[in-house]
């Protein structure tokens, strides 16, 4: 379970990117954060995966307070989070297999990393996960030769390699065409069901978010303006989230 309470964040040039944001991601749930550009979705993500610190508030993974964890403790939490990104963040010159194995770096010594010795057990696991996401024939293919959808599958496989309890997906389909985007979301849904992983996705694509999620959080200018199931998202709610020309919600 991921619990976010009263999270606030400001940048020197942009005050109040996030203002007292609170919500809960329950185990095995598919949650989407929606909102217009500049609503604070990406900052929220960077705080949740530990790349950014919040000014105040609390992030609890299970019972561990994440925002105050440092060093070993922080890494221990990071290991239970899988993240996938809009631009995939894969090493283009490395193969699909090598990219998936990169998820194991925290457990290896520097010497093993330099020699590329990951051990047969990890190799088998990586191959099995790549099969699971439908890339059984692309194991040794350099990522630069894969299509966008295939790259996102590799990224999902890399995230799954650590058996995460939470999967953070930052605009996972924004760089993909509509058909491939749906296939990727089908895969995420499948992973959520079969592995019992909670998924937290932020997306510009309202239609897809409503279709695939169990739980919607609406952000507007850094504040939560909606928290509920997708079928409760009415036109009035959307007006509050996305705002209307000249009308403040």
């Amino acid at each position, binding site marked *: 379970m991921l619990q976010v309470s009263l999270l606030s964040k400001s940048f020197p040039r942009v005050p109040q990117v996030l203002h007292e944001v609170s919500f809960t991601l329950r185990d095995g749930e598919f949650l989407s954060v929606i909102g217009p550009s500049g609503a604070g979705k990406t900052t929220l993500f960077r705080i949740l995966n530990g*790349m950014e610190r919040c000014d105040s508030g609390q992030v609890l993974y299970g019972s561990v307070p994440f925002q105050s964890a440092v060093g070993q403790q922080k890494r*221990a939490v*990071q290991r239970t989070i899988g*993240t996938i990104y809009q631009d995939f963040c894969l090493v283009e*010159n490395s193969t699909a297999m*090598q990219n998936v194995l990169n998820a194991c*770096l925290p457990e290896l010594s520097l010497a093993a*990393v330099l020699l590329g010795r990951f051990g047969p057990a990890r190799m088998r696991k990586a191959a099995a996960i790549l099969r699971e996401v439908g890339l059984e024939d692309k194991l040794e293919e350099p990522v630069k030769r894969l299509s966008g959808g295939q790259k996102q599958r590799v990224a999902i496989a890399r995230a799954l390699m*650590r058996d995460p309890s939470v999967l953070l997906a930052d605009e996972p389909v924004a760089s993909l065409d509509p058909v491939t985007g749906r296939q990727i979301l089908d895969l995420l849904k499948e992973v959520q069901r079969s592995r019992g992983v909670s998924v937290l996705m932020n997306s510009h694509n309202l239609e897809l978010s409503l279709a695939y999620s169990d739980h919607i959080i609406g952000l507007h200018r850094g504040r939560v303006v909606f928290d509920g199931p997708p079928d409760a998202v009415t036109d009035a709610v959307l007006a509050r989230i996305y705002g209307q020309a000249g009308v403040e919600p």
Partner: protein
Amino acid sequence: MKRRRISLLVFLLCAAVFLAAAWLTSCDLGLMWSRRAHLTDIALKLFPPDWSFAQKVFPLLWATVQMSVTGTVLGAALALPAALVCARPLPGFPPVKQVLRFLVQVLRSFPALILALLATFFLGIGSFAGTAALTVYTFAIMTRLTYEDIEHAPLGPYYALRAMGSPSLHAFFRAVFPEILPSYLTNTLYLLESNVRHSAILGYVGAGGIGLLLNEKVSWREYDKVGMILLLLFVTVALMEALSRFLTRLVQGETAIGRLGKRLLLGTAAFLFLLCTLTLPPPDLSRTSLQMVHTLFTGILHPDWSLFFRMDRSGVGYLLLETAAISFVGTCVGMVFAVPLSFLSSSRFFPAPVAWTFRTIITAIRSVPFLIYGLILIRVCGPGAFTGVLTLAVCSVGLLCKRFSEAIDVLDLRPSQALEAMGASSMARIRYAALPQLAPPFCSALLYRFDVNIREASVLGLAAAGGIGAPLIFAMNQYAWNEVGALALGMILLAWLVDLLSAACRRLLR
């Protein structure tokens, strides 16, 4: 419209600077024309080469190759950890980054020849000093290129791995290293090639290799023997270039070899490196003493400021201005010849036999060490800055052609084909379809060449061809370390200024 006006302004500015620099270096095409007979005279005497001389050349040629291979590999290997420390996005202690970057910038200001002369004071006369100088030279250039590559590499994958809890060094080796590896290897190969040419002149200052013999034969006017040395040097450089072209294609993934082939290649490379390194003669430390090192460093660290503020022709200011002017005019003249030559040497615009002929001519121009041009041209135009300009112009033709043809080789030909389909001539296709696309890479090659020429111009002094090199080398040979300190500081400042200027130009180009 505004862009056009800016281009015109830049062009006029360049033209004005060119004319001023040409006046300063007393360029005189009339003199060159009236004494042209001397040029053809020497060129004709190089043929036929003295074939019996070859067996005396081979051992020295091997020493030259040995120095370049060891120097390049060691320098490139040391550059990798240094670049890791220097790169801004990677974690580390900022003051350490700043100090190391500054040190690399200082080292980069000196040509290999000056480093080699300095090395002979520590390590004695011989190949060991030359190897040490090439190692330092390669290290400085490779560190700079590699940390710039790291800073321009996509860092998303690195941060993604960091977010998963990877230590930073682990994440660097798995996420950033594979992305910069092709360019790292390509740069290393390029430096190996240029180091072979550099090491051919290190003998001038007693740092081993073929240079000493070459100098001797040029001063004794035994041109048939010079011809033999140049021929063998040409063959070596051509072989090196062919090898490097093949390896570059391999690195860029355009040619593939099997796993066995890769292992064989790596094995051969390792064997060659070990052979070159282990057979190096040991340094001659008999004349090195702590006292000497102490005097050298205290001297250099207390530069003779009076040189700085002298306004006549022996002042640092004038010497630097002359050096900069020589390189500027040399680069511009080189460009005028390099642009048509690089098109003529491309089989994408001209028939294969024509292209092949011109490519061979360009390789031949490039394979002659530039000091040799200096020594030959000095007999034509006499000592002075004009000889320096001509020397750098000839060298720039060779090296600019290489960069230019690389840009032409990766050019998008579809616009040109579209014009061809409408019946446009070769010339029209180059003017309207190729040149607009090529302007940015050509400008960037020119800036790079200017940067290198500034450093090479400071060596021209060896051939009495003007610039800051002659006083610097005299001062070093007279152990006048205070003067060396002042002149070296001047060179560092000039290199730094040119660096800032070319960075600004690059930003404009983008």
